[in-house]
Structures are given as structure tokens and as C-alpha cells.
């Protein structure tokens, strides 16, 4: 194993340990002096120390060594767990993240850890006031004072000294020097040590009053921080990099290209099957065809498995994302003076890594919103008869071919009336439309660009660019977001995402002579109805399916496909759904469903409403993939044009 391999192992171990560390520090804060937590923290520090020493990262070793010392004292109950300790440990964590990132990117460390190390050392120091009386025979008292000071510095940090030895002249008449010291030494030992010094007649050690200690320690710490300015912003803080896998490190580009190649194979495999079928129609009696069939079956199976394995390599447990939240929630709730309990469920749920990367920001935004606007201040909650501590619950689970994420809080909920007023006031919708809207429709308004209910713009969330960006992000991933809320009881956002972006199950349909693909996940049902059942309500074609009225659209009109002459008495209707909305698409033919490899149509063509990408069919031709969200928008848009008020179209 060369150094590069070792480095890979080292970094993934550090990553692993740092995640553990973060979790345990937060546990420590919650549970206080819990021996198993302290033990586990000690072990983590110890592991990190060992591996960083082995790799020769001195600063990391030094820092983890000091952490280990502090944790050891905690373990032996020589020191209490105070908020100060927790904060300092978190500071260490930030530094370690910073160091790790530097090692990853530059192969060496830059961050100065002196200040943190120093703080760690002083953590359990007690303050003492020492009075040293010099003997009368002492000739050069100034010099003597310096000597004593230097000696003291070996055992303790000297916070203040009176009189100042630098200002002393040789002749100055003073007998006594008093120091204020921070040290972990026992007072007896300290006194002993002092008395043994030459020219010292007597030494007294007395505890220094604790309340004034902060005043003294603060400037000292300040001075130290000033000396190492880069320490104020340890790198790796705040926006931390996207988390990477734990054991094998593979270039993302390589994964992408493997995925593409497998995609090609899937397409060619479909072609082989088709050609095989055609051959069998032609030479039914030929025995070789049976062999061909066997081979193609085997081929299909292997490609299927290959595809599945490659997909798996792209999957990561959502824990990678979830692990960022506890710290964020802690910091945020402190800033906002709220008491929030975070519950994470289903962190083992696996998602495509690109999905994990993309979904991070929207989730963070939802959490911030929940803390900032959702959860009320503790006093308010108590007044309302709720527990003072608010709860945010984030869950992840698989449902069929989808991943469902929820972000739920037990806060104030969203007031639909307020939403309406805001939307009207901001001229996002005309007032007369607003009055006819249902509560569910009103709630959807929060996703409009430029909407924000908080009247004050806070630093944490909301400049009115929030929810629409969240929704855009999710729709970009072919996902859906939905909101449920109950006033005074809380809000729940549900996000549904495809398992992967690269391959999806598609329903192939034909409009005239062009084939299109619809993501199977948004198809609700397929029906064949007699043409005479299509009714028209206010110019909108509708059909009644099991007592529900579903609006119908002919994509031919939207896509300017000339209508063909059909004498058919029946039509096929594909009902697609977006949240609780339904839309029936009139199609000319159903071709079937199959796995399709999603490809981009590129930036030259750009965004086309209702089209999310393209795929290559078995015969090598290209089919466009329809995007259901876009289709709903198209339908709304056309309705608006037809009813003559284009301005209202969203």
C-alpha cells in the first residue's frame, strides 16, 4: 500500500470518526455526564490521535492529544461537563474538519491549532493568587523577579503580575511580588516549588475569586486569538463539503461514465430482443433461433444485474445528509432562542448520490423555516399548553420506486388566510381569484416566487426567495413537494423523489407518429373510454372516471401536432397526477412500459415546458420524456389564454 492508498484510508477513517465525534458531542450536551458517551468520545480522540500521528500530521495529533487529556479528566470525574467544555469540543471538531479538508485538498495542514490547544489545556485550570516575598538579602530584585516568572511559566500560565517586572529598576524597593496563575497543580505543590527558589523567603498560595477570573482570562484568550488570526474562522465551518463514501473512493466522473455505458447496453439489449423477435417471425422453424433466444435471455438478465449493481454503487444512505442536521439545528435554535428537539428517522434509506447532493439545500431550507417561522418561542409554547421544547421530525423511507422525505414540526402551522392576504398584497394573484380558492390551493401559493410570510426578514430564512427555489430544486429532480398544515399544531412537508435520476420506468405513448415517454411514477391510471363520454364544461373537455371529473387535454394541440383522422370510437386516456391534481392525456396509442435511460436534451435547445429530457428507444430513435409538472403548467397556461386573461397565467 503506497502513501496515496493510505491517505485514502486515513481520510475516510477521519471522516467516519468526525461524524461520530459530532454525534457524541451533541449527546454529551444532551445527556451530561454519561460515562458511555465520554468513553466513546475518548476512544474517538484516541483513534484520531493514533492515525494522525501515523500519517505525520502533527497539528492534528497535538489537538487530538489535548482533547484526549481533557476527556480523560472528564472520564475520571476530575472535571465537570460544562457548556464551556461542550463548546470547546465543538470548536475542536470544526478545527479537525478544517484540518481534514486541508489534508484532502493540499496534502498538508495550514490551520493553526495553538489557540484551541491552549484553551483545552486551561479548561480545568484553577486560578491562584501567589504572593512571593523575596528575602532581604536579594541583590537584584528585578532580575530575580524575571527568573521567578520564567520558572512559573513552566508550570502554569501567568495571567497577571504585580509589580510589572519590565518596569522594575534594580534599585526599586519592593519585597513582594504577586501573581495570578492558572494551573492544574495542587496549591501545596505550587507553594513548595516556589519556596525552593533562591532568594524566596516565603510564598503564599490562595485561591483566586472565580467571578473575576473571566475578566482576567478573557484578555489573555483574546491576545492569543489575535496572535493567530486565521483561527477565528476555522475552515470547514459552515458550508461543509458534500460528504463522500466511507470505504471506496471512486471518481464521480468515472461512476457517471460507467452508468452511461450501462445505459447504452440496456438500449442495445432491447434492440437485440426486438431483432430476435423479428427473426423468429420470419424463420420460426430454425433451431438456431432457440439458442439466440437463450443467449438474449441470459444477456438481459446479466445486464439487468449489472445495471442494478451500478445503481447501487451510486447509492448512499441518507445518513450522509442527515448527519449535518443536528449541529445545524442546535446552532440555529440557540441563535433564535428556541428549544428544538430534532428527530431523525430512516437514516439508512439509500438514495442516488446526485439526489442526495441536490436535496441537501432544499431540506436545510425547510428545517430553517421550521425553526424560524414554525416553532414558537418556549414562553409562547407554554402559554399555548404545548411542551416548551418544539420537535422537528425528519424522516426518510422507500415507498415503491420512490423515496419519501418528510420534514414536520409541531409549531404554529401556516395560516391559509394570511397566505391569501400576502399573496394578494404582493400581487401574486388577483383578489377575485383568491376568494374562490380552497385551503389546499391557498397553501400552494407559498411556492410562488416572491412569497414570504415572515414580515421581518431574518438572517436565518426568508428573503422571499425560499419556497419557490425549494420547489424548483425538487422538480429538477423529477420530484414532488406537498405541504399539510394545521393551525397551531404544525406543518408537514412531504417530498417524493425518484430513486435515481439516470433510469426510470417509462410509459411509452404515441401521439400521431411520434413516441413520447411518461414517467410511470406520475401515471395514475390508464383508461379506454368511448368518445361520446367526453363532455365539455365551459369549453374544457372533461371525462368522468369513477365519479371523478378529470379535465382532458390533447397534447397534440400544445405540441402543434396535426390531428390525424381517426374513426375510432374509443380513445385512450392516461391519467397523470401531481399531488391531488389529476389530468387526463388523450393519446393515440399505448406502446407499453419499459426502463428508459434519461438523457439531457442539452443547453442548445434549452428548457421546453412539458419536456424533461429524452431517451433512446430500442430502434435507436429518440423519444422525448414528458414532465408532468410542466404539463400541468401548460394546461393552466392554455386555459388562461383561452379565457382571455393571459396575465393570470403563472
Amino acid at each position, binding site marked *: 500500500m503506497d502513501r496515496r492508498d493510505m491517505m485514502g484510508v486515513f481520510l475516510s477513517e477521519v471522516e467516519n470518526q468526525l461524524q461520530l465525534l459530532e454525534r457524541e458531542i451533541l449527546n454529551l450536551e444532551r445527556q451530561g455526564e454519561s460515562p458511555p458517551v465520554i468513553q466513546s468520545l475518548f476512544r474517538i480522540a484516541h483513534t484520531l490521535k493514533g492515525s494522525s500521528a501515523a500519517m505525520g500530521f502533527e497539528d492534528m495529533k497535538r489537538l487530538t492529544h489535548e482533547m484526549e487529556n481533557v476527556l480523560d479528566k472528564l472520564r475520571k470525574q476530575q472535571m465537570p461537563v460544562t457548556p464551556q467544555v461542550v463548546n470547546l469540543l465543538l470548536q475542536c471538531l470544526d478545527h479537525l474538519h478544517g484540518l481534514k479538508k486541508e489534508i484532502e485538498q493540499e496534502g498538508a495542514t495550514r490551520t493553526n491549532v495553538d489557540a484551541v490547544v491552549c484553551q483545552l489545556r486551561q479548561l480545568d485550570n484553577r486560578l491562584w493568587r501567589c504572593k512571593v516575598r523575596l528575602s532581604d538579602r536579594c541583590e537584584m530584585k528585578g532580575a530575580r523577579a524575571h527568573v521567578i516568572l520564567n520558572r512559573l511559566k513552566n508550570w502554569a500560565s501567568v495571567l497577571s503580575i504585580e509589580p510589572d517586572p519590565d518596569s522594575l529598576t534594580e534599585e526599586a524597593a519592593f519585597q513582594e511580588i504577586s501573581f495570578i496563575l492558572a494551573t492544574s497543580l495542587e496549591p501545596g505543590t505550587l507553594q513548595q516549588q516556589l519556596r525552593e527558589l533562591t532568594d524566596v523567603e516565603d510564598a503564599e498560595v490562595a485561591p483566586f475569586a472565580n467571578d473575576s477570573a473571566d475578566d482576567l482570562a478573557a484578555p489573555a484568550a483574546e491576545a492569543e486569538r489575535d496572535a493567530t488570526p486565521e483561527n477565528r474562522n476555522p475552515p470547514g465551518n459552515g458550508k461543509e463539503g458534500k460528504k463522500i463514501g466511507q470505504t471506496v473512493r471512486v471518481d464521480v466522473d468515472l461512476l457517471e461514465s460507467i452508468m*452511461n455505458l450501462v*445505459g*447504452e447496453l440496456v*438500449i442495445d439489449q432491447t434492440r437485440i430482443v426486438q431483432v430476435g423477435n423479428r427473426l423468429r417471425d420470419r424463420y420460426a422453424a430454425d433451431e438456431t433461433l432457440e439458442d439466440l433466444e437463450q443467449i438474449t435471455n441470459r444477456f438481459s438478465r446479466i445486464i439487468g444485474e449489472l445495471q442494478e449493481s451500478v445503481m447501487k454503487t451510486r447509492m448512499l444512505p441518507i445518513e450522509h445528509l442527515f448527519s449535518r442536521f443536528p449541529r445545524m439545528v442546535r446552532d440555529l435554535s440557540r441563535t433564535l432562542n428556541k428549544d428544538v428537539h430534532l428527530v431523525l428517522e430512516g437514516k439508512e434509506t439509500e438514495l442516488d448520490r446526485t439526489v442526495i447532493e441536490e436535496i441537501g439545500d432544499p431540506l436545510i431550507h425547510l428545517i430553517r423555516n421550521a425553526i424560524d417561522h414554525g416553532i414558537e418561542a418556549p414562553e409562547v409554547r407554554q402559554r399555548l399548553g404545548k411542551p416548551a421544547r418544539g420537535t422537528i421530525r425528519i424522516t426518510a423511507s422507500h415507498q415503491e420506486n420512490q423515496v419519501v422525505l418528510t420534514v414536520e414540526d409541531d409549531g404554529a402551522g401556516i395560516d391559509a388566510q394570511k397566505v391569501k392576504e400576502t399573496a394578494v398584497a404582493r400581487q401574486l394573484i388577483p383578489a377575485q381569484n383568491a376568494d374562490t380558492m380552497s385551503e389546499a390551493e391557498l397553501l400552494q401559493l407559498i411556492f410562488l416566487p416572491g412569497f414570504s410570510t415572515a414580515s421581518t426578514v431574518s438572517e436565518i430564512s426568508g428573503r422571499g426567495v425560499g419556497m419557490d427555489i425549494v420547489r424548483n430544486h425538487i422538480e429538477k429532480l423529477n420530484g414532488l413537494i406537498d405541504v399539510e398544515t394545521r393551525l397551531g399544531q404544525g406543518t408537514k412537508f412531504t417530498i417524493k423523489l425518484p430513486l435515481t435520476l439516470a433510469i426510470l420506468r417509462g410509459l411509452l405513448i404515441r401521439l400521431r407518429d*411520434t413516441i413520447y415517454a411518461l414517467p410511470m411514477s406520475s401515471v395514475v391510471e390508464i383508461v379506454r373510454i368511448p368518445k361520446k363520454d367526453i363532455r365539455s364544461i365551459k369549453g374544457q373537455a372533461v371525462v368522468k372516471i369513477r365519479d371523478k371529473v378529470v379535465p382532458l387535454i390533447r397534447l397534440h394541440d*400544445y*405540441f*402543434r*401536432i396535426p390531428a390525424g383522422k381517426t374513426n375510432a370510437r374509443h380513445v385512450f386516456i392516461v391519467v397523470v397526477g401531481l399531488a391531488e391534481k389529476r389530468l387526463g392525456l388523450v393519446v393515440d396509442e399505448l406502446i407499453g412500459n419499459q426502463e428508459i435511460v434519461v*438523457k*439531457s*436534451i*442539452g*443547453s*442548445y*435547445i*434549452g428548457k*421546453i*415546458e*412539458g*419536456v424533461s429530457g*429524452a431517451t*433512446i428507444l430500442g430502434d*435507436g*430513435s*429518440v*423519444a*422525448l420524456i414528458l414532465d408532468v409538472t410542466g404539463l400541468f403548467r401548460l394546461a393552466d397556461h392554455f386555459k388562461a389564454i383561452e379565457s382571455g386573461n393571459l396575465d393570470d397565467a403563472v
Partner: protein
Amino acid sequence: MDDVLRPGQCIDGLRGLSPVKPMDDVLRQDQYIVIELGMEKYALKISEVCEIINMQKVTAVPNSKTFLEGVTNIRGKIVPIVSLRKRFQLEETQDAHRAKIVVVNYRDELIGILVDGVNQVTRFSAIHPSAEVVSGVDGSYFQGIGQAEEGLIGILNLEQVLAG
């Protein structure tokens, strides 16, 4: 795929049809592919062309650029196809069997230009600035008029032809 002509092949193949005469050393570097559109001929700098393929199935893309013919599959890549006829607002042709797709690289993307045919590779003895209107087409689509033995040929300005 044997129906695909790579640039090298293409030039060699066509060189037989139209022997190249020695020219000035400076001009020697600039070779042009002459394409056909109805009765007209236009030229594209050979360095701008990635490959030339036969016409193949193109899938229409709704609600897009007016001159976009659609998209096609070139070795697993989705490539937009622009119709030069539509771009120059000429009528559609019925005679499609000679049609070729000239694939160019435009802003780091492959784009196919649908033409009636690819004629030859040539060099120009002189290049004149283009007029306001070149044989009934907006002059801004051209970067100059090349003078060849067989006459004057408008040299396409890819940036203008594909933009918009």
C-alpha cells in the same frame, strides 16, 4: 456504423471527385466543405465540422426554435438537428434521400445541420466580404464570399446561423 463518415474519410473520399490544385501556402490550410441547399451552394470551414452522417430518423421537439428540425441519436448522444432550409426560410424539399447531417461543435455541444447534400471539399483562391444579401439570404449568416473555380460560394458564419 459504416454509414458514418468521419472527417478524414470524408475528405479522402471526396478528394477523388474534385482534385485539389496547389494554391498559395496561406490558403492551403483553409479547406471548406461545400454543401447544397436546392440550387445553392454554401461552404463551411472544415475545421468546424466534426463529422458528416446520412440523414436518419429525427424526433420533432415541440415549442422550440423555429428552425430546429428535432433531435437524433448519434452514438448514444442526443444531438439537436437544425434545418438550414428552415433557417433560410426556404421551402421544404421532397427529395430527402441525398440529405446529410453535418455535425459541428457549437459552444461545446454537438449540433447537426441538415442540408440537402454534401458536395465536395474545396479551397478558395480569394475571400470577399459578404454583401448585405447573399442569393436571397440575409448577409449576416455569412462570414465572406469565397472564390473558387466553380464560382462564388457563401461561407457560413456558424455563430449566426445557429444562434437565436
